[in-house]
Every structure is written in structure tokens, then in C-alpha cells.
């Protein structure tokens, strides 16, 4: 039977069929649904880890102990997990270990678009790249087998288009079962220099063997067509090339590290002009050229952003008249916004009013940077806000600086920089926007919510106690709907000569709808525009006055509290 699955659903399906026993990761678009779907299987131990490094370490442990294991993360998550990655290539595995890195070309929801194929090369681990859901499902199975055959973790690298596009998948696979079993083997798993040096050499042998395997791997295949022009491609780019050049020869690579050098050389030598079509960096092209083969690619195909058939056609097909981009002259954009009634809104409003320097972090609340709130100065990566604030304070000595970080992000990587602030005498105020979930990726639980991915109650991390234990003496918890208290807390805490933490706690609207009645604007409104500075999707500017769309209003009352003319009142 064939069913329509997203790439992420297909990876979960394929991993389950391959008998994965332990699966873990940290939510991150476009990878999140892989674990959410694995969690549905009773026989898979699926969990959210506090961050990707921890996730990979757990999976390494379970692999060593004989359980097939999978970790899933977005591309930047692999930076966090890079430390164990480079060494697990040395130790190798017991049961198969598959690491899914979901890259985001075009930065649909990411802070950069790094090409994680280079991680495979740098860490010396084999890499597979699916081009649709069917391939995603079957390559996961291959990945487990390769991992066990060659005693090495395997990187399954996807991109947003593969993760989030749906296509048909055969779902009649039989499930493989594997009994876990742990055997001590310190020479293999304890990487003290003496052991590591041995494993380092063995790694090269394994890579040699993998290269040979890659030559004959069924996923690396030539589809012969015209011998005048041929393509080398992988991942989603394969689908675009097939779409545009149905007559051409194509060498489609599903295993892109190590590359099948003989296969590629033989192919290139039989075709007049070979074009490498790949998204982002010239990863394939550089390696192929380094063997003295003549191929082209990136001189015409952009290495910035996501590819699509239009971009490839523009680069490769001489067109009589370029399809003129009759861009509609400056249509109003439609950026994402904080929801009506979002608990973060009032905090950003007050931060702006108090002219604070705000180092920000990754989550829904990053939207606080957009006008009219416009109250964020930096956003680098998960957990960076706190270290950034410490740095700004070191450089300028100012007290008017706060770090803003979400609850899930704080657990991910905000704790160690907070320790740094205390340890090294910082006096910065750290704001934890505790909305009781991981909102941006679609409401995932984390240690602070006290519920696991499987929906089981567990210990709820106590932020107040945690930060006190770190050495923060000035800690307070405030309801972010209470604007006066928000303002007071920020003013007082930033004025202090010691580090402090303010926890603004109120659930995200995806978790709990506020019970407030909707508000409306009455005739007292004189058009002062103060409420418009909240950027609430329910409030708009109509004929010189504010207007509230009651179907959207969540009744948070923040706008009513701001209005000096009592023009915003609750609908009775």
C-alpha cells in the first residue's frame, strides 16, 4: 500500500521498520515531526532531550548498549552536537546509530543556512541524502545497516523541502527486531589518546571500505539519457533536474560521503558537458573538480538560498525573453506576528519604553524585534542572549541591558552562561519568558513543563530554585499581563548592582487560551495610536481611530491598560 507521507513522517516510519529502539532530539524546524511521529510507536523510546548534544550522547550510549538509535535535529543543532559527533566516528557503534540533520536552505525558519554536508566530511562519517519521502524511508533502513556493517554512525542529511513535502511511500515494510546487549570494550569506547590513536587509523580503513561500498550502492545510480549534457545531483535538486531535463543523463547520488570516485569519473568521461546541481555550497563540485574532472555548476547556479525549478532554469536554459518578474510594485509584506494576547507582548513593549538594550534569543519571542515593538538588539543562536548581555555589560559597563530568553531555550543552553555571569561578577538582568512550552516549533514539552514527549508526567524543573542555586539572589516571578508589575520589575532589577533573574510566567496561547472577554474601542478614542505600538493582530488603524477585531481579541487587557482615555473597554 502506498500512502502520502511527509519526509519527516517517512523517516519515522522507516526508522521504526528498521527496529529503532531509542530516538531522541531537540525540536527544531524542519526536523520536529520526526520525533513526534516516532513517539506514536509504543515500542520506540522517544524523548526530547534538553539539547542536541545531550540527545546525541544518549543515542551513543544506547547504540553502544546494543539498541538501534536515532537522533534528529535541525542543522544548527548539529553544531551543538558536534563535540560528540567527531569522536563517535572514532569509537564507532554497536547497534546502528543514525543522526538526522535537517538543513534549512533559504532560512525559512532559521538564523543561518549552513550546509551540513561538510560535517560528514569533517567528522568522517558516511552521509545519505534522500530526495523524497519514499527514499527517506528506505535510506533510514540503509543507514542502520551501513552503520552496523561499517561500525560507524551515519548522517542522514535532509533539507526543508524533503522534510515538509509529502509524497507516496510504500508502507508494507516488515519490522526488523534486534535484541540489545551490552559488552564492555574499553579500547573501543574509551577515547584516551592511546586508544583514540588506534581508532583514528581504523577510521581511515572504515572510510576506504565505505568508499568501495559507495561505488556499488544502489542509491548512487546513473539514469542514462543524452550524452551531450548530463547532471550530477543529490537530494531535492534531483527532482528539479528531472522536472526540467527529462531527456538528460543524470547521476543521482544518495550517498554523498564518501563519494564513489570511480562511478563519477566513469560517468563524467562519457558525457560532453557535466553540470553539478546542488543546493547551497559547491560540496560535490569541489570534490569532483579536485580529481581533475571538468564539471560546472556554481558559476551559474546560486549558492545562496533554496533552489527551485525556476532558479535552475534561469541559470541553465538560455531563454529568449526572461520571464519578466512583474513584481507587484511593493505589496505590503506579511511578516509573522506574536499572536493576539501573546504573553510576550507586554514585556517587549515595556523594554522598548524603558530604552533597554536587549540581547535576544531563539523562539517566538524573537518576533519582538519586528516593528512596532522593535525591542531586540541581538539574536545569534540558542542560548546566546545571556553571554551576549554579559559581553555588552563588560564592554560598556551599562546597567540598562537585559537578556531575554525563553523557558525551553534557557534549559537548552542558557544555564551555563548564567553561571558565567554569577562566577565572573556580572550584574546583568536575565529575563526568562516562561510560556510553559516550546512554542515556535509548535508546542513541544521540555523539562520545565514536567511532561515528556510520550505524554508522561515527570519532574517539573523549578526555574526559581535552579537560578538561586546558581547564585542569583535576586529572583522574582511576574505575570506578564500585569504591565505595571512588568515595568517595575525591569526597572528595579536592572538598577541593582548584582545579577538578577525575572521570570515572566504565563502560558502560550497554544497551551492555554486566556479566559478574558474581548475588548472594544469606544468613541473616547482620539487616535493617539499608543495601542498600535503593541503590534497586536487584533488592533488596527481604521479611519483615524483604533479598532479591535473581537473575533481575534484574546482579552489580555494590555491595550486597555495602556489607553489613557479609557477608550478600550471590555465587551460585557
Amino acid at each position, binding site marked *: 500500500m502506498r500512502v*502520502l507521507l511527509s519526509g519527516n513522517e517517512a523517516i519515522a516510519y522507516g526508522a521504526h521498520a528498521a527496529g529503532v529502539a531509542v530516538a531522541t532530539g531537540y525540536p527544531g524546524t524542519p526536523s520536529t515531526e520526526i520525533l513526534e511521529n516516532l513517539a506514536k510507536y509504543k515500542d520506540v523510546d522517544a524523548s526530547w532531550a534538553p539539547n542536541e548534544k545531550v540527545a546525541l550522547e544518549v543515542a551513543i550510549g544506547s547504540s553502544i548498549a546494543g539498541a538501534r538509535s536515532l537522533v534528529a535535529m535541525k542543522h544548527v543543532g548539529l553544531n551543538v552536537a558536534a563535540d560528540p559527533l567527531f569522536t563517535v566516528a572514532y569509537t564507532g557503534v554497536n547497534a546502528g546509530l543514525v543522526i538526522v540533520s535537517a538543513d534549512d536552505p533559504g532560512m525559512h525558519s532559521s538564523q543561518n543556512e549552513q550546509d551540513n554536508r561538510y560535517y560528514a566530511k569533517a567528522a568522517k562519517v558516511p552521509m545519505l541524502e534522500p530526495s523524497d519521502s519514499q527514499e527517506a524511508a528506505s535510506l533510514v533502513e540503509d543507514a542502520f545497516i551501513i552503520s552496523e556493517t561499517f561500525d560507524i554512525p551515519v548522517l542522514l542529511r535532509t533539507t526543508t523541502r524533503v522534510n515538509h*513535502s509529502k509524497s507516496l511511500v510504500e508502507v508494507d515494510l516488515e519490522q526488523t527486531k534486534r535484541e540489545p546487549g551490552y559488552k564492555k570494550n574499553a579500547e573501543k569506547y574509551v577515547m584516551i589518546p592511546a586508544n583514540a590513536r588506534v581508532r583514528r587509523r581504523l577510521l581511515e580503513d572504515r572510510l576506504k571500505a565505505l568508499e568501495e561500498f559507495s561505488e556499488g550502492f544502489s542509491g548512487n545510480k546513473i539514469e542514462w539519457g543524452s550524452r551531450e549534457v548530463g547532471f550530477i545531483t543529490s537530494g531535492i535538486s534531483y527532482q528539479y533536474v528531472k522536472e526540467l531535463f527529462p531527456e538528460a543523463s543524470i547521476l543521482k547520488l544518495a550517498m554523498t560521503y564518501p563519494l564513489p570516485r570511480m562511478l563519477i569519473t566513469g560517468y563524467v568521461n562519457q558525457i560532453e558537458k557535466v553540470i553539478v546541481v546542488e543546493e547551497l555550497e559547491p560540496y560535490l563540485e569541489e570534490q569532483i573538480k579536485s580529481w581533475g574532472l571538468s564539471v560546472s555548476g556554481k558559476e551559474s547556479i546560486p549558492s545562496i538560498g533554496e533552489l527551485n*525549478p525556476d532558479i535552475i532554469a534561469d541559470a541553465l536554459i538560455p531563454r529568449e525573453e526572461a520571464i519578466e518578474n512583474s513584481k*507587484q510594485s511593493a*505589496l505590503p509584506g506579511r511578516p509573522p506576528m506574536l499572536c493576539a494576547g501573546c504573553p510576550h507582548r507586554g514585556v517587549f513593549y515595556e523594554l522598548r519604553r524603558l530604552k533597554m538594550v536587549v540581547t535576544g534569543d531563539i523562539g517566538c519571542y524573537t*518576533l519582538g524585534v519586528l516593528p512596532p515593538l522593535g525591542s531586540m538588539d541581538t539574536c545569534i543562536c540558542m542560548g546566546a542572549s545571556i553571554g551576549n548581555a554579559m559581553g555588552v555589560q563588560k564592554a560598556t559597563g551599562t546597567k540598562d541591558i537585559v537578556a531575554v530568553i525563553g523557558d525551553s531555550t534557557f534549559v537548552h543552553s542558557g544555564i551555563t552562561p548564567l553561571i558565567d555571569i554569577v562566577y565572573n561578577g556580572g550584574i546583568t538582568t536575565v529575563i526568562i519568558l516562561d510560556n510553559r512550552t516550546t512554542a515556535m516549533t509548535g508546542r513541544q514539552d521540555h523539562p520545565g513543563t514536567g511532561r515528556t514527549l510520550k505524554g508522561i508526567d515527570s519532574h517539573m524543573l523549578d526555574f526559581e530554585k535552579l537560578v538561586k542555586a546558581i547564585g542569583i539572589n535576586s529572583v522574582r516571578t511576574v505575570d506578564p499581563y500585569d504591565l505595571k508589575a512588568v515595568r517595575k520589575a525591569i526597572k528595579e532589577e536592572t538598577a541593582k548592582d548584582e545579577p538578577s533573574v525575572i521570570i515572566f510566567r504565563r502560558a502560550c496561547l497554544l497551551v492555554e487560551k486566556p479566559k478574558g472577554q474581548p475588548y472594544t474601542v469606544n468613541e473616547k478614542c482620539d487616535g493617539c495610536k499608543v495601542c498600535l505600538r503593541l503590534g497586536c493582530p487584533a488592533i488596527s488603524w481604521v479611519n483615524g481611530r483604533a479598532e479591535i477585531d473581537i473575533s481575534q481579541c484574546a482579552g489580555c487587557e494590555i491595550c486597555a491598560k495602556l489607553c489613557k482615555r479609557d477608550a478600550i473597554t471590555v465587551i460585557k
Partner: protein
Amino acid sequence: MSSDVKNILIVGVGGQGIILAADIMSQVLVGAEYDVKMAEIHGMSQRGGSVNTMVRFGSRVYSPVIEKRKADFILAFEQLEALRWADYLKPGGVLIMNTEKIKPLPVLIGNDDYPEDIEGMLRQKGIEVIKIDANKLAEEAGSKKAANVVLLGCLATYLPIKKEGWYTFIERRVPPKTIEANKKAFDIGYGILTEVASV
């Protein structure tokens, strides 16, 4: 080039039920033995941003992404988004537009204006627009939230699948309590377009 592949672009604003509509449609097409691919991007777009979903079907589909000027149909859940994506429609393609207007942030805060007479602008581009007040019709059907299914019904008029073929998948995907309202919403959408088409 892949000849029999049809391209449907669904556009609108996060929260309008676009992905559900596209899901139902894709399932129906799979049920009719087509090869189907569906591309969507979610993430930031959920917070009231512009959303697009692409559905392609035929005997063999490669790219999940539709090229500019290749869409056979655009189903626009919102007027400004119809205009934003109009260039994806192929000459002679059909654009079905919900009359709903959702102001984006720059318009809400008075920094920009919502374009007037979008229908006129589309016609100027030579596009035949089919305009439908799906929100009103959905209310008539018994559920405000079924506007997406009204629009789906409109589009279904053009697709090579019998009307009854849609019900099973609507039943499977909408909340149980709203099944009847959604079926009715589908019927209304379907009915309206058969009328428009025959005028």
C-alpha cells in the same frame, strides 16, 4: 516535459486552514490513483504570516514545487495573497478568491495601505477571477471554520474526481462534531461554482 501534471497553488494566511484543505485534496487525489506531491513550508509562517501550499498530481510527479506561470489553479484564501501569488498562474488558469481581507502588520499599524480593488488589478493582468465569500457561506453551512472546505468545494468542481469521492476524506480529517457542517460547506462551494461555470 511532464505533460499530464496539474498544478494547484493554495495561498493565504497562517491559521486559515490551508494545510488541512491541501491535505484533504491530496488524499482524494491519491485515492484516485494519481502520483501526488505536496509542498508546504511551516515554521515562522504559522504566526499569521503568508502561507502557501503546492499540490501537484499526474501520472508521475518529480518536483514538489510549482514553477512560475505553471499553476493551473490558484485557490486564494485571502485577497492580498491572491495578488501576491498571481504570477504563478498560467495563462488561462483559474483563480478562485475568497473575499476575506486580512490586514498584515504594516497595514494594521497604519504604515501601509491594503490595496483597493484587488479584483480589478487581477483582471488587469488578464486573469479571470472567481470571487467567493467563503466565510459567509461557511456560516450558512453551520460552521464558521469551514470556509476552507467551501473553497475546496469550489476547486473540486474542476478536478477529475466525483463529488462523492471527497466526502470520505473530509470525514476523516475534520473534527467529528463538524462533519455534517463541513460536508454541507463542501456542497455549497461545489454548487456555487457549477452555477458560475454554467453562466
